[in-house]
């Protein structure tokens, strides 16, 4: 069998009924996948089938539906583990979204710090340092800010160059012997920068710090293999990778999951419980208190199947091409300034820009009237906005179902913006 080398975008589009949706008299050009992706019928159908055929709570029953639901859920875990090259399905924890995944990690440090018997790798003290970057989504910034505040640790960060890249030269200075954990974004959601990971990871290893990666914008778009990356944790989210809302993933090395205290507590994560005292199950159950997103796990597995069938290398190639085209075409727009890397190298197909004299809200509104859906605002990355002296940007982001023609429509619609606000 020959490998498919290119995406058949027309065939893909047929799987996404929402792309037929009309705004006014035109089909929508959905260029907002960095916020959330659309879902193919395969995902919706898998969830419907599960709900109408096998729906039950998991893990705790011997009846047929319960057994099927448990198999579906654990099967989804194995499916996700394989997709990211995790050595064991038990290293995959299902959460509700990336945000919870990162909070779970930050609270592991907070709770360990409150427990003198906890694993020393997770116990923080004043003087200890936590490192992030200036291009983080708020989800990978605020939990660490709060952790620093509550433990007395210090938050530090790697800055951004004028070209929208991480200031790698500052690494030796920012990551020091006092650094206990480094958490940084793999692909920046506002700038579109794809960060090289090896230098940061190597330096973190050198100083004995743990390393986490916010992979929310990478797992959906490029091949991600946790073994190759050599990090300790990654977080990502179902709804950005063709899957449903309500499910996210924390992957972590088995021995770290063992060492981390529980976060949410309740049913299905225990060994024994008395009124006085509880002992906890092994990971991943330890971190999955309560009824998990069961139907959502089925949807996520279907999304992973879909992406695997396309081939993540093909997805990357398709988006690289779109990124190049988008950058090239946008540069032709009068008064448009790109915020982030201006070349399609080490960047995703997510492009933020400002339009001279027109506020992004107004840009987005006019684009919407032209049936072009983009996102406007600070994209939950206010520090990045501050770094580039803007209050907000307009952001267009492409995915497997987007075409050159849709980018042309974006550019055309930007002309219309000029007309309205000329």
């Amino acid at each position: 069998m020959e490998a498919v080398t290119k995406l058949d975008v027309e065939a893909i589009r047929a799987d996404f009924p929402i792309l037929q949706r009309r705004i006014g008299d035109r089909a929508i050009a959905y260029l907002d996948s960095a916020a959330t992706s659309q879902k193919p019928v395969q995902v919706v159908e898998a969830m419907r089938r599960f709900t109408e055929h096998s729906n039950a709570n998991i893990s705790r029953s011997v009846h047929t539906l319960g057994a099927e639901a448990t198999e579906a859920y654990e099967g989804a875990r194995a499916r996700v583990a394989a997709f990211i090259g995790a050595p064991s399905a038990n290293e995959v924890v299902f959460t509700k979204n990336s945000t919870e995944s990162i909070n779970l990690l930050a609270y592991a440090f907070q709770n360990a710090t409150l427990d003198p018997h906890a694993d020393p790798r997770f116990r923080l003290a004043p003087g200890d340092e936590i490192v992030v970057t200036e291009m983080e989504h708020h989800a990978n910034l605020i939990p660490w800010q709060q952790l620093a505040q509550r433990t007395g640790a210090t938050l530090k960060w790697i800055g951004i160059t004028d070209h929208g890249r991480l200031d790698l030269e500052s690494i030796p200075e920012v990551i020091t012997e006092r650094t206990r954990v480094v958490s940084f974004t793999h692909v920046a959601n506002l700038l579109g920068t794809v960060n090289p990971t090896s230098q940061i990871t190597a330096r973190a290893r050198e100083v004995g710090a743990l390393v986490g990666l916010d992979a929310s914008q990478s797992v959906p778009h490029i091949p991600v293999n946790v073994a190759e990356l050599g990090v300790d944790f990654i977080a990502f989210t179902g709804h950005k990778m063709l899957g449903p809302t309500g499910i996210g993933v924390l992957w972590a090395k088995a021995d770290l999951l063992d060492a981390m205290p529980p976060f949410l507590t309740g049913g299905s994560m225990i060994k024994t419980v008395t009124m006085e005292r509880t002992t906890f199950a092994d990971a991943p159950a330890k971190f999955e208190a309560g009824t998990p997103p069961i139907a959502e796990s089925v949807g996520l597995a279907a999304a992973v199947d879909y992406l695997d069938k396309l081939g993540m290398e093909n997805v990357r190639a398709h988006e690289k091409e779109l990124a190049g085209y988008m950058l090239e075409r946008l540069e032709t727009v009068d008064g448009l300034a790109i915020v982030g890397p201006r070349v399609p190298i080490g960047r995703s197909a997510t492009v933020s820009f400002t339009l001279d004299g027109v506020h992004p809200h107004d840009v987005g509104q006019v684009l919407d009237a032209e049936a072009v859906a983009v996102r406007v605002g600070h994209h939950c990355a206010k520090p990045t906005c501050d770094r580039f002296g803007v209050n907000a940007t307009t952001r267009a982001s492409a995915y497997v179902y987007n075409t050159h023609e849709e980018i042309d429509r974006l550019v055309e619609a930007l002309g219309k913006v000029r007309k309205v606000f000329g």
Partner: protein
Amino acid sequence: MNLDELYQEVILDHYKHPRGAGLREPYEGESHQVNPTCGDEITLRVHVDGDTIGDVSYDNVGCSISKASASVMYELVNGATVDDALARLAEFTELMNSKGQAEGDEETLEDAVAFAGVSKYPMRVKCALLGWMAFKDALVRASTPGRTEA
């Protein structure tokens, strides 16, 4: 959607030529408001002169809707009695919450009736109200500290 309905001439005119912009003295109350979804900001001062709004001055960053709305508000409340200004605030807020169902009374709201179309766009209603919220807040502050007659 109908762009013209949203971006009426009068709105674009206020946007391009904002009335009463800039921060001035004297003032008794100042408010800083942020729209957390887009980062838009306004700093607004109110000078109350007896029972009249002596001046409303402001500095803002924002979209056409939020900037035009502040400008239109300036025209409506500046020089009005405090009671009338509060009545306009109530009227305008009601118009914005009408989801396209109300037209607004041109007698009282004047240019602000042009914002009736905005009320159909829930994501923009916050923009249109930002300046008014700042005005409301500044007025409360103006009447709180040393003043006896509110």
